[in-house]
């Protein structure tokens, strides 16, 4: 970010806030590295032939990104036309007979690439929220009591390394057995992937929260004791604020894990998201598929990076530790 600011200042003829050597390191080197990567990629991809044709180079992938955007626009256009026709028809019906029964249908088109990104984000946040709601209180309990921590530890150690691919069948069967509703608010596939995401992403938050609470400054605990604070006051005004930096470190790691796990979960659960997009393209096997999957790879990477930045900013908001 600071590099960007520096470049902007240079551009406008001002003095750069960032000294030139730093600017080179912060912006020049990464830019060069990206260019070198793109160059190498396009050279290598030109030499590899598959049964589906050439491996797509940067240009082909960029074109596919454009196609996906165009498809999205076209689909939105069709939806707009549909709604307009429906409105016209309803208006006509009402004009003939003010008491005519009009129906308002929602447009059911194929989800576009952008729809799928939105679904993925919703799923990951649902799973992440679920995980945080469980992990933060549990982590606080583990941090407060050595006994509880000792009791929880084997489960943390055993379940933490389990892959989402192992959780998903279990989750799917459990959800199918228990979530029976004629008019479900959430689709089963959405719930399956969200729960799988939370099962995999709750561990970093749990471990870091427990660490934050157990490593709280002894002086602060002494203050709570000499002020004779009630335990609820101690918890919410001393313990939780003191461990917020580590809790947020955990949340940041959890969201990263969750986003990574989501794609795998969506692929298997057939939840309409980026994972399903990748899977469908893989099954489709057209000459465009490879390029489209590569677009998805970059999308996943960039969104993951942005999520991490947001969490980092939140983390810095609550970090009082160094400013005592």
């Amino acid at each position: 970010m600071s590099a960007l600011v520096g470049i902007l200042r240079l551009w406008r003829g001002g003095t750069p806030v960032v000294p030139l050597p730093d600017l080179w390191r912060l912006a020049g080197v990464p830019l060069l590295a990206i260019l070198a990567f793109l160059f190498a990629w396009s050279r290598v991809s030109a030499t590899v032939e598959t049964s589906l044709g050439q491996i797509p180079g940067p240009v082909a992938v960029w074109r596919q990104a454009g196609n996906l955007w165009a498809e999205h626009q076209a689909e939105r256009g069709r939806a707009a036309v549909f709604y307009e026709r429906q409105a016209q028809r309803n208006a006509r019906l009402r004009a003939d007979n003010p008491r005519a029964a009009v129906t308002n249908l929602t447009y059911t088109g194929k989800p576009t690439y952008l729809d799928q990104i939105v679904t993925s984000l919703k799923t990951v946040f649902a799973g992440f929220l679920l995980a945080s709601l469980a992990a933060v209180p549990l982590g606080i309990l583990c941090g407060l009591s050595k006994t509880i921590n000792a009791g929880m530890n084997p489960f943390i150690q055993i379940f933490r390394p389990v892959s989402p691919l192992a959780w998903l069948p279990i989750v799917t069967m459990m959800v199918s057995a228990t979530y029976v509703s004629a008019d479900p608010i959430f689709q089963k596939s959405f719930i399956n992937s969200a729960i799988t995401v939370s099962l995999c992403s709750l561990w970093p938050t749990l471990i870091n929260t427990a660490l934050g609470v157990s490593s709280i400054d002894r002086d602060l605990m002494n203050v709570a004791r000499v002020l004779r604070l009630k335990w609820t006051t101690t918890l919410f005004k001393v313990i939780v604020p003191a461990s917020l930096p580590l809790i947020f470190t955990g949340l940041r790691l959890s969201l990263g894990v969750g986003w990574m796990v989501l794609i795998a979960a969506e692929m298997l659960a057939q939840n309409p998201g980026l994972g399903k997009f990748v899977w469908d393209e893989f099954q489709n096997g057209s000459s465009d598929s490879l390029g489209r999957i590569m677009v998805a790879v970059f999308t996943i990477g960039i969104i993951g990076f942005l999520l991490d930045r947001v969490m980092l900013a939140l983390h810095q908001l609550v970090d009082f530790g160094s400013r005592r």
Partner: protein
Amino acid sequence: MSAFIDVHRISKSFAARREARHVLRDVSLQVERGEFVSILGAMGSGKSTLLSILAGLTAPDAGRVTIDGAQVTGIRRDAAVVFQNYSLLPWFTALENVRLAVDAALPDLTKDEQRAQAQRALEQVGLGNAIHRRPSQLSGGMRQRVAIARAFATKPQILFLDEPFGALDALTRETVQQDLARLCAAVDRPVTTVMITNNVEEAILLSDAIVPIVAGPPATLGTPIPVALPRPRSIAQLAHGEEATLVRAHVVATLTAALGRPRRHGTVRLKADPTI
């Protein structure tokens, strides 16, 4: 009739790697109601352990502490503690830090009264216009003033001070000391105070009696040295006054005599020199 604060032959040791490390052995101390007593000794002599036992934060291995006739088993409602490193909550403003103490100690007051009392306490230490600042926005001296305001805001009967000026530079230290002396003198009823310090001047400036702590660990207490100087005292007066000079000489002599003496088990008893 025993003293207001009566420490009777307490011992404390901490488990070190193999053997128990004696920090305090057979320590006794009497403090009368309303008295300001300083426990003066070098770093690492077990002073802080003694204070935390008095305050009820730590339990002694042997012996007992009674305050106003009741044995100390936990933190007393009418006691306040000021720590060396301020110990303010960094996520709260000065006012919120003081209010935490007021709200906990006086839950019967209304919110407005609690707020007013906290604000008054901050005004008394000269921080009336900094009440909405966080500790990170305050200087070291201001932070310790907030900590002192927090201690006085609940109108305690007993005050325990653990090297309250230890983290301050010499110039700031002086002004905060004056503030503390003023607060101790200004309250309606006398506050019984035990202060831990390693600074002779500070002890003379504030105390009614100085108890040297010698040859720790395990630490034992020397005979209390009375400081019969008129109040209010000032640093300048202490620097040149004859009486103050005598007290200083006595204290320093006691401490250095103890340092030069070979370590023996049991209590080291030091007699006050009647000629001083």
